[in-house]
């Protein structure tokens, strides 16, 4: 018998939390993320979505890319790379950022954790070691370390998440404001907790060294036993983030460095992220192009839509008239929102038409037959889901 697995090179890696997650993945519904085996869902996507909205649930963010950037020039280097003013981030705070090419097109989005004056952590969905190295060029004292495999991370989201962390013994966690970072001792090692997440709800992210991951899981699940804790996968995440109005690579934007066709990538202004672009700070990648775009206005604008009827507008095209003769955009993500009871979508609309009448042509199938409907869309300025508890400090227990 051959002891060597001939498929070893094709098998996916597993996250430090995998042994627990495998046991709970009743349906064996796996997908992958950055080379890691990753749950699509554990039991049922909608059930897990409701765990997020109604109780609390965990999402394994270990496969996310994590980089430590340290040194005297770390802040200056990051400030040169991202569009937001990194100098304004206070220690133990997190900031959401995007970074762009010189043409002002979005490479990726992510979060910067300011751990100390000369120490940051950058997290993002796709690997960006090469871009970080490029961005560090010319800065004498910066070390970039890829922590992706060296740091396990678990997101705990939902209305009872604060109560669970208190029960876990994290004294003072209730004082954390949104985007705050706190440090606790867990089995004599550091447990980093940030009040962050990707669901638009009350939630936290827990960062721990991989060899303590299973201890953390077990103690967290013991603490959450009576607070409805349950794992959730990619499908539920996608529902929650869309309700919160958060963007996803591969959905709302095409990563600029992977884009083949001219301007099939996006600018921060097109993604409605103009608030992340700070022209008052020193020079940064894409500044000139973005200044020009600010001047002339973005070609497209990412728009939140509340769509008539209950058929999700997946892949729908958007028109300026009911007869569908004037196409003005396309839907990037769409779903029926169980919490809000609305047919919601994010869509890229040509800016000059974004304030006018909007109609979606929705195609759907009923028992193998194809149907289509043209329905009216209403623009929304606020996130579809934004409960008060997400911002409350201290947050409610349930």
């Amino acid at each position: 018998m051959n002891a060597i697995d001939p498929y070893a090179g094709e098998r996916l890696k597993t996250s430090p939390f995998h042994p627990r997650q495998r046991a709970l993945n009743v349906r064996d519904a796996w997908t992958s993320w950055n080379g890691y085996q990753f749950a699509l869902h554990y039991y049922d996507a909608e059930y897990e979505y409701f765990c997020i909205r109604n109780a609390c649930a965990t999402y394994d963010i270990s496969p996310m890319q994590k980089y430590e950037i340290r040194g005297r020039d770390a802040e200056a280097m990051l400030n040169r790379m991202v569009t937001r003013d990194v100098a304004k981030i206070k220690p133990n705070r997190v900031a959401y950022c995007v970074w762009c090419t010189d043409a002002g097109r979005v490479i990726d989005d992510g979060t910067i954790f300011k751990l100390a004056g000369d120490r940051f952590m950058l997290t993002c969905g796709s690997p960006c070691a090469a871009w970080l190295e490029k961005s560090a060029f010319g800065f004498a004292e910066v070390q970039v370390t890829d922590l992706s495999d060296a740091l396990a991370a678990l997101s705990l989201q939902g209305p009872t998440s604060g109560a669970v962390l208190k029960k876990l013994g994290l004294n003072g966690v209730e004082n954390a404001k949104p985007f705050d970072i706190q440090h606790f001792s867990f089995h004599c090692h550091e447990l980093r907790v940030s009040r962050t997440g990707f669901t638009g709800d009350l939630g936290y992210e827990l960062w721990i060294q991989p060899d303590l991951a299973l201890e953390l899981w077990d103690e967290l699940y013991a603490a959450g036993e009576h607070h409805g804790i349950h794992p959730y996968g990619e499908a539920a995440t996608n529902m929650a983030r869309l309700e919160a109005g958060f963007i996803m690579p591969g959905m709302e934007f095409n990563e600029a460095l992977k884009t083949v066709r001219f301007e099939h990538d996006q600018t921060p202004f097109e993604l409605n992220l103009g608030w992340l672009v700070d022209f008052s700070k020193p020079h940064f990648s894409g500044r000139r192009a973005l200044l020009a775009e600010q001047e002339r206005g973005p070609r497209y604008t990412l728009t939140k839509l509340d769509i008539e009827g209950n058929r999700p507008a997946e892949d729908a095209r958007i028109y300026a008239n009911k007869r569908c003769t004037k196409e003005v955009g396309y839907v990037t993500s769409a779903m029926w929102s169980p919490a809000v009871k609305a047919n919601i979508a994010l869509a890229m609309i040509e800016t000059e038409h974004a304030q006018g009448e909007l109609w979606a042509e929705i195609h759907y199938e009923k028992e193998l037959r194809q149907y289509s409907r043209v329905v009216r869309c209403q623009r929304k300025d606020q996130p579809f889901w934004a409960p008060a508890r997400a911002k409350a400090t201290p947050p409610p227990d349930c």
Partner: protein
Amino acid sequence: MNAYDAIVIGAGHNGLTNAAYLAKAGLKVIVLEKNDYIGGAAVSREVHEGWIYSNCSYVCSMMRQAIHRDLDLSRHGLLLVPYLGTVNFGQGEERLLSYHDEEAAYLELKRHSPHDADAMHRFQADLSRYAQLIRKTLMRTPPDPASFRPRDLMELLHLAKQFWSLGEREIYEYIRFFTMSAAEYLEDYFENDLIKAAMATPGIIGTALGVYSPGSAYVLLHHVMGDVDGAIGAWGLARGGMGAISNAIAGAVTEHGGEIRICAGVERVLVENRRAVGVALENGDEFRSRIVVSNLDARRTFTRIMDRRDLPEGIYEKARNFKIRGSSGKVNIALSGLPKFTGVPDNPHLNRGGQAFIGTLETLERAYDCWKRGRWSGDPFVESVIPSAWDPTVAPPGKHWMSNFVQYCPPQLVEGPWTPKRREQFGQTVIDKIERYSPGFKDLIVHMEVRTPHEIEQEIGLTEGNIFQGELTLDQLFFNRPFPGYGQYRMPVKNLYMCGSSTHPGGGVSAVCGANAAREILKDLRCPNSVPEDDFHDE
């Protein structure tokens, strides 16, 4: 002078919905509620400290999405959470588990009967077809079949068109279905007794019919035609209890400028020149208005708060004879922990869902026999759910509460009226039955609220505690609800309307009756319509 455009009597969820739509249309509206809390049967109350019971209705599936969305009830705090998995308890160790996953559900049925596992597909397709047709009538005012008004003719034509689209064979089946019993209908599909019994239980819940009584097949349909987010037949819990639904609708009422007054029991509807002109309260206060809307059931509206002399001939008798029999009880139990059930795997998705303590089809029919004789069965059918296993807001962490709906429970006992002692004995019967399937259950009990038809009528004013505000039989459905000739929410006295479950489409926390009535009222007052259409037109 207390002058309003509209007075709504009763702050049940339909009365509130009605008021919300009238207020939204710009009318000056007041809702008058006799209790010191709102919600009627869609209510949550902290009867025992730390525990919030849904005292009456306990789950929901008929709540119309279109209304939820239109009144923005999510913003007013409403979150409906579907729950999964029901365990049906048969005789001895026999269990039928309803898994959420289709494949798992199929394998479970196959374990009991390969025949029935296959037949389930046909059963569900047939039932969905019937349900679809009925669902399309929910948010529409029934046509008057004796009228020649264009609107009624058009509506009849619309219905006929829907009906014909079923195809000839199905039309015959459909008509047969409406008059059949649940048990006989299921006989067409299934052979296994527990499967039949489990599928038959929705046919008797809340009704004075047995599983073998003609008409119970429709009640079955009424209970499975709802949906949660398009999942037809699914049931959900309201976060915070059923009162969260009423509270959210009340939020919409006040947002649109409507007024809600509690501790304001209506003594009499004031009628002048054969028109309703206002109401007099039990405390003597009077309110005048252009129209009066009653959220009370048909019997109570015409025999309790109307002067018989104000009614056209025959109406009082119709109301008195309106079929509204009390047949159900409710036992709300606070528990110190989550009960465990014998023969059920320790699967959190399963034993946190619902429990149906059945026995056999025979058990259900025998329980009905007892009810007819003015007794409760020693082996009643109990449908339970443990909301706290899903909802972190209704019990302290680690503690639970269990809602137990009991079919049947007589409105009057053969040996005399309900007394606290007899009520306790009834509650004891229920927990004895649960204890048979969950040894040690009684040790978990912290507090119990036992409700017979008597308590339900006394507290929230449902005649005999009938949960549907009137039986759901063909003679009282659609254009016959509440009475033939009065199926369009307008009542025999001018400017008087009804908006409760005594009107089309009947019982259930759907908010439809209230919304439909508002649409008709606005038409009469020549106000622009503020009530949405259902969003299932592309189903």
